[in-house]
């Protein structure tokens, strides 16, 4: 049986307690994962300086070069996974086995992850606004004619990871180039990506002491977030809400991403159908940057009907099928529960499952795997309970709303793609604290520029700027 160990500052540790993760189709145990007890994590985190010192031995440019090299290893090398070796094909098949994600989508996510590693120099430049990397190494210098000095706010970054999509791992990788060691808690069904990313970076020369990897329970996750100076927490709104007042932790909850079409362009909505479909369905609809809402001033029913028609083309396929776009649910009960929540919302009245009129049951099975078919709901009002919901499958509500009520009625939204040229609406969106990422024009919500911050700027999360003045040294 394949076994994934705990990693304690680079050292593998096999726990007495293991979690057994099943294959999404057979439900038989596919991998055993060592589980860390919270006390072990807290004890390890008493020393966070070892990893930090190991990274400080390198320049930022050296770490960027290692990251670039690791991008290649991640894509092509055979790397350790526990006591066994893992080829890239193994990684794709293993990740798919425990999450149900089609191989083609896993490969797309691999490209995304390796892209960030390969482009680490420009990612860092984006996050630091073009800071000379020598300033990061020295801690001070001159930038655009001004004296600047930065200091690390923490000796490690604790990250509580999800299982929904490997693309999110791109967000924490730059921490290594910023010389901040990582303390990773993998998602219960997706132990693969963080482990492989770390192995690729280690093979490229990053000190192993900079990586700790703790599969664990809620108590262990809490130990990581409590004891690392800075954290990132991916989870649903209820889980991350507990840390809403803790500024040390960057929260990545439900995205509620949306496409908004303005009064000025709404009569041309058909032109944007591809952007809408891509925003809702890419990556199996599993990302926080997938749109879960299309907010329009009118033509809502027609837009919903057109989307529903396009969605009928997306059908369950085997995970190895290159055309596969839908991911089955590793636990069929979750699919049924999600579908029941949608039905419960529909029973409130004021909303119609437009897809249902075309495709029958929302829950289907293929080869013993359970899927939720893409679903578009038309909501007559933004107050409807389904108007602002997000689920782990391609789901969107088309909501009719008076443009004058935007962006306030949107609520907190991770990505807004605004299809408008109306300067007043654009100004309001730019000024809104409710909007985290803003695309103006026909850019799918899924399209990410990695030199842009995502739910906070990782550099600013890990480093603070201090006032700095220095008398010129004699002879200088």
């Amino acid at each position, binding site marked *: 049986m394949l076994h994934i160990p705990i990693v304690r500052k680079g050292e593998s540790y096999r726990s007495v307690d293991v979690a057994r993760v099943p294959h999404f189709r057979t439900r038989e145990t596919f991998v055993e994962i060592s589980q860390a*007890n919270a006390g072990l994590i807290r004890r390890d985190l008493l020393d966070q300086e070892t990893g930090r010192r190991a990274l400080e031995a390198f320049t930022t440019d050296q770490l960027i070069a290692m990251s670039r090299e690791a991008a290649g290893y991640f894509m092509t090398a055979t790397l350790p996974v526990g006591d066994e070796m893992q080829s890239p094909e193994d990684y794709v098949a293993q990740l798919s086995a425990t999450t149900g994600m089609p191989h083609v989508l896993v490969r797309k996510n691999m490209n995304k992850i390796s892209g960030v590693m390969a482009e680490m120099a420009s990612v860092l430049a984006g996050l630091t606004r073009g800071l000379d990397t020598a300033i990061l190494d020295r801690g001070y210098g001159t930038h655009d004619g001004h004296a600047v000095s930065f200091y690390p706010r923490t000796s490690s970054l604790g990250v509580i990871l999800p299982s929904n999509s490997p693309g999110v791992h791109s967000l924490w990788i730059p921490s290594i180039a910023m010389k901040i060691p990582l303390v990773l808690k993998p998602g219960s069904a997706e132990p693969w990506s963080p482990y492989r990313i770390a192995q690729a970076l280690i093979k490229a020369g990053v000190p192993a002491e900079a990586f700790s990897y703790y599969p664990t329970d809620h108590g262990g996750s809490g130990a990581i977030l409590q004891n690392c100076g800075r954290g990132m927490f991916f989870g649903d709104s209820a889980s991350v809400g*507990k840390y809403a007042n803790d500024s040390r932790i960057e929260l990545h909850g439900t995205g509620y991403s949306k496409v908004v079409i303005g009064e000025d362009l709404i009569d041309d909505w058909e032109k944007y159908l591809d952007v809408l479909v891509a925003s809702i369905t890419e990556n199996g609809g599993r990302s926080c940057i997938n749109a879960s809402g299309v907010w329009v001033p009118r033509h809502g029913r027609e837009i919903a009907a057109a989307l529903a028609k396009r969605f009928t083309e997306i059908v369950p396929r085997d995970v190895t099928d290159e055309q596969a776009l839908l991911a089955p649910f590793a636990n069929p009960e979750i699919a049924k529960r999600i579908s029941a929540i949608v039905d419960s919302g529909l029973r409130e009245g004021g909303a119609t499952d437009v897809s249902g009129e075309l495709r029958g049951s929302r829950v289907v099975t293929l080869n013993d795997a359970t899927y939720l078919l893409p679903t578009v709901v038309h909501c007559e009002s933004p107050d409807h309970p389904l108007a602002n919901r997000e689920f782990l499958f391609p789901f969107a509500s088309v909501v009719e709303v008076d443009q004058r009520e935007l962006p306030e009625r949107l609520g907190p939204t991770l990505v807004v793609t605004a299809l408008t040229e109306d300067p007043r609406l654009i100004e309001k969106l730019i000024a809104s604290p409710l909007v985290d990422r803003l695309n103006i024009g026909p850019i799918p919500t899924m399209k990410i520029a990695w030199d842009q911050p995502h739910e906070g700027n990782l550099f600013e999360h890990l480093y603070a700027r201090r006032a700095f003045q220095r008398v010129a040294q004699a002879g200088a």
Partner: protein
Amino acid sequence: MTAIPQADRKNWKEALDAHVREMVAWHFSPETGSPFWLDFASKLDWDPRREVKTYEDLDRFGSFEDEWLRGGPVRRWVPKGMADQPVYVFETGGSTGIPKSRISIEDFRIDYEHFSGTLPDEYFPKGADWLMLGPSGPRRLRLAVEHLAQHRGGISFCVDLDPRWVIKLIKMGEMQMMEKYKAHVIDQALTILRAHDSVKCIFATPKLLEALCEKISLKKAGITGVFCGGTEMTPQFHRFAREELMEGAYFAPTYGNTLMGLATHKPFDPADNYAIIYYPPMPRAILEVVDPDNPTRIVDYGETGRVRLTTLTREFFMPRFLERDEAERERPCETYPWDGVRNVRPFSRFATSVVEGVY
């Protein structure tokens, strides 16, 4: 009867049956029984004193309901035969609602004196002082550990710890405040250890033991024996404690509660892969693992089930009580030739409602 002497343990079943008859005779005699059980018996159409001959016959009482222990009058549990003696009341639970109460007169002393016999003197030196790093207030544990220390010729230093407040903090989502409270408890322990180098032995709950060891080295603090219990212990915690916290100190994990007394652990054997195996203090208490859907069926060895407790002391008669724990049924071993329980943990069907806190 107190504990069954080692030499007589082969005949433990005969001893248990004799003890059952003696306890039933005591608790159902109008002269010595408690008002609760005398009232209970008055509603039966059979006479326990005549018809209960063996341990198995206790099935006739059905399951003991934990609701019977909530609320008063608590004196209904005091056997008439002991009514003139000083009575303690100990509580269990109670972070919300009415806690379960159990009266006690001498049981906590007797239980811990028996347990004392299982502690190696080399690591728990006679005359050494103790630190009781566990809950205070209306808990049996504080007085019991204090008595253990006194029984072994030492003195027990204690901390203030209100576990009900900790559980409230967790339920309120006040995790940082909970951490501060835990730090406050550990600060008290550190102060005691710094001021009194006579302390060589500790009682600690698993979480407080971890927290203490994050602050000090047990070895440097002169601690040679650790008695650990009060909440669930996983095999991984057991390994972690032995490998990384003890630094040569003896680790004695226990399973106990206000209603039972104290079950001792099977001596450490690497072949058990850090499973924590407990044996009940026969014949004063019996632990069994039963089918949760049919609690009269004892599961096979190695099978998982719900823990069922029967307590049979002169102070307290509690047949067939279903604990809020599950475990695997364990085979007898040389030291304890009766059934044990392996890896006790909260009953999984109640798992969502159990909040364990720092203690």
